[in-house]
């Protein structure tokens, strides 16, 4: 393949991403602006329930992982359990409900849906495991 053909092939591939990317970013930012400090209001104080809520909140959130560390660190200071916060930061970066349309269009429906479901379950399991290991060491 010559360079011109290679560039065109890459540009065409990227081009298909643009409408979904803009749509997803518009949607995510609208929800983010509208929700404000919603994270703190979500947690109930129940250890088990909060880990599920944490994973759910992380799944619908969006942004670079470092943002989840900052948000997670702040809600931890406010008294939310480490289990819930760990599930939250894990789901933030491994589950992408907002990005699902984009992932489906590029990597396939079955792959994207199953991968996100597994990642959601793993976020809760790993959170439990991490907190348990921290307690015993």
């Amino acid at each position, binding site marked *: *393949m010559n*360079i011109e*053909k*290679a*560039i065109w*092939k*890459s*540009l065409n*591939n*990227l081009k*298909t*991403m643009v*409408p*979904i*990317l*803009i*749509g*997803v*970013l*518009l*949607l995510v*930012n*609208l929800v*983010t*602006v*509208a929700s404000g400090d919603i994270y703190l209001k979500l947690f109930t104080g129940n250890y088990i329930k909060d880990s599920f809520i944490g994973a759910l909140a992380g799944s619908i959130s969006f942004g*670079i*992982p*470092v943002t989840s*560390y*900052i948000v*997670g*660190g702040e809600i*931890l200071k406010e008294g939310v359990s480490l289990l819930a916060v*760990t599930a939250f930061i*894990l789901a933030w*970066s491994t589950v*992408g409900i907002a*990005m699902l*349309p*984009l*992932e489906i*269009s*590029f*990597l*396939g429906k*079955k*792959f994207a849906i*199953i*991968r996100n479901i*597994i*990642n959601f379950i*793993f976020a809760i*399991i*790993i959170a439990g*495991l*991490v907190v348990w*290991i*921290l307690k015993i*060491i």
Partner: protein
Amino acid sequence: MTIKQKIKKIPGRFKFLFLILFSYIIIFFFSQSLVSEGIEKTYLMLFNIMPMLVVVLIVMTLMNLYIDSGKIKKHFGNKSGIKGWIYSIVVGILIAGPPYILYPMLRDLKNSGMKNSLLAVFLYNRNVKIAYIPVMIYYFGLEFTIIISVAIVVFSILNGMLIGFLVKDEIIV
């Protein structure tokens, strides 16, 4: 051709964008500040990811030029063996940028023969981000950071195995 047929012909990605834009127009009548903040944030995000998109374009072009499907199949295909898993973990940890920017490149890799299981391993290990580790240590401590990073790598393998078992490898058009 009727309007219904014309709408049907519009690709799904454009329908999705139009739906979001329509939602913005509706919300504008209730809260102008919400809409303007949403647009401003989106504009800033798009502006910030531009350099990364250029990098992705360059990488994809180089891949198209120098990496053929034979090489992909060798390192990430059915016969890649344990090396394929190790490569996916290492590349997943080292590669920068949000996943959505990498999707077009990953589709190319997938269509060139990369296994679904290794794709899942690669995507999961993107959560061990060396550049962000100091921030995680600052908020959660060194022990937490080490344990969670190791857990992500270990669970990425389980993740890959499950995906490999549940999702058949196929070409994405």
